[in-house]
């Protein structure tokens, strides 16, 4: 079978396998489907993640044999890797033990790359009249901007410079505007992969239906799932991942004989609690898929409070961290009011209501402020319950907090007592810590959250 026949066949298969992408596949076929014609200089394929860009293009070019090179720019992060992989693929050269894993050629610069490219294209040319297109595909093309500002402009100009029948295809999830630079990038043909609509998503997800399952029954399940999850997330991959893990839970009552397939309401009541948990746990990847499968129903109904924070620190270190949080979020001029031992009765009043509404934007929202070490230590000695017995090495604790990145050092000095810091933990975390040492942080905070 000739390459052209295989390619035509592949396009036909793709149109069946990718519902909702017919238009895009047709456009691609129109532009690159005929391997023996003049190819367009460059095509830019873009669209949100999980819209089938990479998988469709990869599937098409798997049939082009040596005429196409598919490069993922995350794998090939330097120009040399990029060039050498391209040349290997186009020449059909495979690094193996026999050739000591060498590449087709050593190639570090654009200049050499252009030479080898011409060399390869001329080698394969057998018939004068018949032209064959060559295709260089770069997935995750946004990474190309990082390596060398001229690389992208040069790549897009390869067809013009070499005068070969070559096309550059870039795939990215960023819009084309972000690729323009002042060196004059040649504008490619834009090909958008729009996000799937609800119907398209359901049509794709129904293909995951287990073999022995009734399609209509499964459809009710995925429609339910879509309606619950589409607000925070429309990524097809995420939805399919959820469907895979939630489906066994959905049919649990049926397997246990508690419900039949027609009891939609009963099944819905049963799965509802799982849906809620799935968003918190599965979607945020707080637990792994296998953990999820092994958990029993009781675990979902009574989730332990703050179970996602699992972190332990020594007693005094916790106080140190709390002190640093207070130093970061309280304005220094109120320190006297909150922490001075003499004004015992005054300090308990935190300024909850009065100030927050009057200031244009709450200072709390701007994040942690920088504080000098002395201030934090002063707060620390003021908030610990009983005076420290014996000597503990406070400095070493501070150093360990710094290595854990719970405190962030500002400036270059390495002297601990001159250092300025910022607290790097959020309110939920500090709340959890204070609870564990029975310390009421809200009393000391300038603006309660």
């Amino acid at each position, binding site marked *: 079978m000739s390459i052209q026949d295989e390619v035509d066949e592949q396009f036909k298969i793709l149109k069946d396998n990718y519902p909702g992408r017919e238009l895009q596949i047709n456009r691609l076929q129109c532009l690159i489907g005929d391997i023996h014609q003049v190819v367009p200089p460059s095509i830019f394929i873009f669209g949100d993640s999980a819209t089938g860009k990479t998988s469709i293009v990869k599937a098409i070019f798997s049939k082009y044999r040596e005429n196409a090179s598919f490069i993922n720019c995350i794998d090939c992060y330097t120009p040399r890797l990029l060039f050498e992989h391209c040349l290997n693929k186009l020449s059909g050269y495979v690094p193996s033990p026999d050739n000591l894993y060498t590449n087709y050629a050593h190639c570090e610069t654009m200049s050499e790359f252009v030479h080898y490219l011409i060399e390869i294209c001329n080698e394969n040319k057998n018939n004068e009249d018949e032209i064959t297109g060559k295709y260089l595909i770069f997935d995750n093309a946004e990474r190309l901007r990082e390596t060398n500002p*001229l690389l992208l402009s040069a790549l897009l100009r390869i067809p013009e410079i070499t005068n070969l029948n070559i096309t550059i295809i870039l795939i990215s*999830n*960023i819009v084309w505007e972000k690729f323009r630079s002042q060196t004059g990038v040649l504008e490619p043909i834009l090909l958008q992969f729009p*996000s799937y609509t*609800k119907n398209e998503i359901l049509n794709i997800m129904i293909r995951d239906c287990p073999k022995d399952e009734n399609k209509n029954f499964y459809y009710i399940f995925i429609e339910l799932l879509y309606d619950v999850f589409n607000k*925070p997330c429309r990524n097809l991959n995420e939805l399919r991942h959820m469907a895979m893990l939630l489906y066994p839970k959905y049919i649990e009552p049926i397997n246990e004989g508690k419900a039949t397939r027609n009891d939609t309401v009963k099944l819905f009541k049963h799965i509802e609690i799982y849906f809620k948990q799935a968003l918190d746990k599965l979607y945020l990847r707080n637990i792994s898929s296998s953990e999820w499968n092994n958990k029993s129903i009781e675990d979902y109904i009574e989730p332990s409070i703050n179970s996602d924070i699992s972190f332990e620190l020594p007693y005094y270190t916790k106080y140190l961290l709390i002190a640093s949080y207070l130093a970061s979020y309280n304005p220094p001029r109120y320190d006297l009011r909150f922490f001075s031992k003499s004004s015992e009765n005054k300090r308990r009043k935190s300024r909850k209501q009065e100030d927050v509404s009057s200031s244009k934007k709450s200072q*709390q*929202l701007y*994040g942690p402020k920088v504080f000098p070490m002395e201030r934090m230590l002063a707060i620390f000695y003021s908030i610990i319950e009983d005076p420290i017995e014996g000597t503990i090495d406070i400095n070493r604790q501070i150093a360990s907090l710094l290595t854990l990145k719970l405190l962030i050092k500002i400036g270059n000095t390495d002297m601990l007592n001159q250092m300025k810091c910022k607290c790097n933990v959020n309110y939920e975390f500090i709340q959890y810590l204070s609870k564990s040492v029975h310390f009421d942080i809200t009393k000391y905070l300038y603006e309660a959250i």
Partner: protein
Amino acid sequence: MLQDTNINMLQDTHLNINRKDVNYIKKIILNNLTGKSYSNKLIGLEDQYNTLYDICKKTIQTGESNSTLLIGNRGCGKTMIINKLLDNLNKEFNEEKQTFLTVRLNGLVQSDDRLALKEMIYQLSQEEAMENLNSTSFSEILSYLLNVLSIGTKTSKPVIIVLDEFDLFTQHNKQTLLYNLFDIAQSNQNPIVVIGLTCQLNVVELLEKRVKSRYSHRQILCFPPLEIENFEKIIINSLKIPENITNINENYVKTFNNEIDNIFKDESMRLIINRLFDITNNPRNFLKICLEPIYKLSINEPYPKVNDFLDAYTRQYVDSKTELLKGTSILELCLIIAMKCLLEKHIELFNFEMIYNEYKKFVQKIEATGNGREIFFKKQVAMKALEHLIAIELVLPTEASGKCPKEYRMMKVLLEPNQITQAVLKHSECPTSIKQWGTRWL
């Protein structure tokens, strides 16, 4: 229009178009559109071409050295002039016996002088010399090349050197290459012409003093088509098949050319040409639109259609950011609207906490109507949504990561308030309450 196509259909059966004809026509036009063929007529650039032609001819025939710069906008036809010039000169002087040599370098490809020198030696077809030079130092290569170029007298073979993206060559260390090339051109050594192509008007100021003094200060300016008539002529010219082509169905060529003329008389077609010409007078942008309709030609549809051109135009010039926003989830849309609210308060830089706070305020406000819970999500879920927006570069962090908790990392939104409003209106699954929030004008 309908009648026209009907007549064409009738004619087709008489014309007997076969697959070979269609493919042949496709090949010719595509070669034109992608700049692979040099047979295209130059429109509005005849003077520039003639000047350059005279310069080169003098060098080839009388051994006079020269240097010149060809300056013009992107896509105005500099490379095309050179391609055509070299093609014609080759036909004229190199047919029987090689009487001159050409070297073409591109600033994007030959990114330093060493590479440029190697490439020059390679193109002067001294491949055996290449092998010896592979491991030698820069100075040795340079002196070798200078030897080759300077031992000659007025009677040696002339060399035409074309430097594309000339401005990039001026960034090379000490401008050694340019210095030497201009030096050879100025002193009567081997006859050479140095032609630099650039789109930077002030390029002469980039030259060092000693380089500048050796350059002949001859500049040829190219302009993109200033009148829409010329602009249109260039486009139509690339879409038509030359009448003198043989071995193809002549009637088909005739109807095809007629059809092209008809297409460009169409109302809506005129509209998009005018609109595009107002945005940019670079013909390349329109030629790109023509690519897809031409690729569509097949034995069943041997003539391009107006609608295909219009489709290609809208696809190329649609606001892709708004398109991207159409597919975002409700939560992501809410976050973007929250950013818009902050912008309206003249807060240009914000962090996640501020966005979330704004979002929370909105949810509390609509809580009374009963559907607030449905669209409210925990901080971590919202954070994940925001990270996706950063990944698709609709939001740009302005601080390096790791300097503070990521909730407080400052960022800015890369969308116009107008684009956000458009996206909200076009979003298919957006609830009414959010639609009102997003389109509210301050």
